[in-house]
């Protein structure tokens, strides 16, 4: 018995080793960025793996430099404000619309949902020029509000689609019973459907948060001075190499937050992915 288990284990060793190797391979680039960000500014022309030989070389100076850099800290703050506020707004607007599309009858309901599904894959590029002109006319160019509204709009098709799919799984009788008891639609929505749909709403919120935190194209187009972090790093990257001591910590901070959100809520994130198309 023990012998066969042993033999079994031996034949499976390559599998474990192979997977461990792949895992290591996948971790290396991120670790490389972290270690690069810890290299002293004078040593940035050496490889990051040097820290394995000389761990004492590691320093937080680059992070001090980053947080002393007003443009960078402002950019991080802008990113945080845009991501959080647009996520809240999107979740509310999408939940209301998904509720209406699922549980209420109104003229054009089916057409609306077909339009929503059609808009799922529409590329952002299609809206850049008209919205640019619109923002210039309306004074929304280079504002947090302009970025927030754009992100809400492009998050809506996926949001409505995802939530409607989830709402459809809630038993119809439950909603009907609440209505017969005299509950208003807003009460049914707030007190019955929302609590039941919390996992789906969490998926949507995490998705939208990560998507907008990580956005580059929209920010690059509609922001000049009110720069989110990706654009701030990009404007530094023109002198790539010489200022790696600023780029590396900035890039690491910019990815540490979505990474933490992902690790904390990864179950919801994966659920959101599995629930349907992805942008």
């Amino acid at each position, binding site marked *: 018995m023990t012998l066969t288990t042993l033999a079994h284990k031996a034949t499976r060793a390559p*599998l474990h080793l192979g*997977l461990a190797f792949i895992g290591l391979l*996948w971790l*290396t*680039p*991120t670790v*490389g*960025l972290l270690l*690069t960000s810890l290299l002293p500014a004078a040593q940035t*022309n050496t*490889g990051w*793996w040097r820290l394995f030989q000389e761990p004492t070389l590691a320093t937080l100076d680059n992070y001090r430099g980053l947080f002393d850099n007003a443009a960078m800290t402002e950019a991080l703050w802008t990113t945080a404000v845009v991501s959080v506020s647009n996520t809240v707004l999107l979740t509310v*607007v*999408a939940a*209301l*619309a998904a*509720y209406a*599309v699922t549980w*209420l*009858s*109104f003229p054009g309901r*089916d057409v609306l949902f*077909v339009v929503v*599904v059609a*808009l799922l*894959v*529409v*590329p*952002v*590029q*299609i809206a*850049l*020029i008209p919205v*640019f002109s619109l923002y210039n006319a309306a004074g929304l160019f280079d504002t947090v509000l302009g970025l927030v*509204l754009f992100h809400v709009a*492009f998050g*809506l*098709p996926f949001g*409505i689609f995802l939530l409607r799919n989830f709402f459809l799984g809630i038993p119809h009788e439950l909603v009907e019973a609440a209505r017969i008891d005299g509950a208003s*639609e*807003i009460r049914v*929505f707030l007190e019955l459907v929302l609590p039941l749909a919390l996992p789906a709403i969490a998926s949507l919120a995490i998705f939208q948060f990560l998507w907008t935190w*990580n*956005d*580059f*194209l929209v920010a*690059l187009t509609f922001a000049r001075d009110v720069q989110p972090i*990706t654009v701030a790093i*990009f404007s530094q990257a*023109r002198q790539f190499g010489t200022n*790696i001591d600023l780029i*590396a910590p900035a890039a690491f901070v*910019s*990815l540490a937050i979505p990474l933490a959100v992902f*690790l904390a809520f990864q179950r919801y*994130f994966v659920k959101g*992915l*599995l629930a349907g*198309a*992805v942008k």
Partner: protein
Amino acid sequence: MAARGRMSWTAVAFVAPAVVVLGVWLVFPLVSTFVRSFFDATGAEFVGLENYGDLLGRDSVLTALRNNALWVGVVPAALTAIGLVFAVLAERVRWAVAFKIVVFMPMAISLFAAGVIWRIMDVQDPEQGAVNATIGVVRDAFSPEGVLSTAQPSTETVTGSLEAGFESTSQVSAGQTVTIGLTGIETGEMPADARQADPAQPTDGAVTGTVWRDFRPGGGEPGVIEAQEQGIPGITIELLDSQRDVVKTTTSDRAGVFVFSDVAAGDYRVRVGPQSFETPFAGVPWLGPKLIIPSMMVAYIWVWAGFAMVLIAAGLSAISREVQEAARIDGANEWQVFRHITAPMLRPVLAVVLVTLAINVLKVFDIVLSVAPGSSQDDATVIALEMWRVSFGGENNFGLGSAIGILLFVLVAPVLLLNVRRLRRDQT
């Protein structure tokens, strides 16, 4: 009837914000971009299809189209294959969840930051770039640094460097001989077929000579070919004329002897060509114009492999174990089970992964601006980047930019129709 009316107003209140936002930021821009694509750069004049003609006549746009075709042809298929392999393998170990989290992690970070990460990985200098450092280590393991990578002249009658080659300081003409003694070569680095060095014989109409390792156990006398000193075989020797042009090349034999025959009258110098000295690995230019596309694809695959894996893994777990078990009991091996049961049942999931990735790859943008240095961007460009450059990158040609936007929309339109058709089918 009254109740219905009240309900209808509620419905309007519920959908109004979404309808307004979708209308202003998506539907109106879509129509507006379409109309705008028939007007000139400033929007003052209707130009018909001119922008679409310009678009197909522009080198940068054609490069972008070609690059996007390459992306669509390579990346979704590669990712699906990788995702499938990872999902199938991970299913067999108990720590599958940990493995999946690690591979999936890059999905959470921005493509822009991922690009920065790979730009650091891909630096050409093997002292700085991890990819080239790894290649250097592997290369050294299989073929140690060149035979002569540490060679230097043994006497002052020979000068030069590893980069320029070593040459004799004295001039020679036909019928004379030269000796080029080199030292500083490790015993282990000598070619295995080297044997005792021979002095070259003077020959009429030819320049002859010997290139040898001017060292023997105990030292020996520099500049003299002695017993136990080996010739250096198989290296390139060049004959230079008075203009320092290479007029002839030859190769040394096992005893280090070389011969340039039929040499015209005149004074010459003899040089050991620099190609004989294998220089240390200088690094592959991953971020240069030639390799930038594969480098960007690697970065992209690193990010999206987790997506493919997770979707395929979910598909795998939905497949009934009983069918697989039944096949195993019937004597099918693992490959047969995979080939005839698992793979066919996975086909719908694989299709979803492929299509989703194809759409995403068509829109690829961030990674180009973050991985590719400015000097490689013209070769790395894609449709989404061209649209941005033409519209906002200084040219401010909104007419042409709109046309490129519409082109991108047309490319994803088949998937849009597919989605709508699937919805219609589900509704009826």
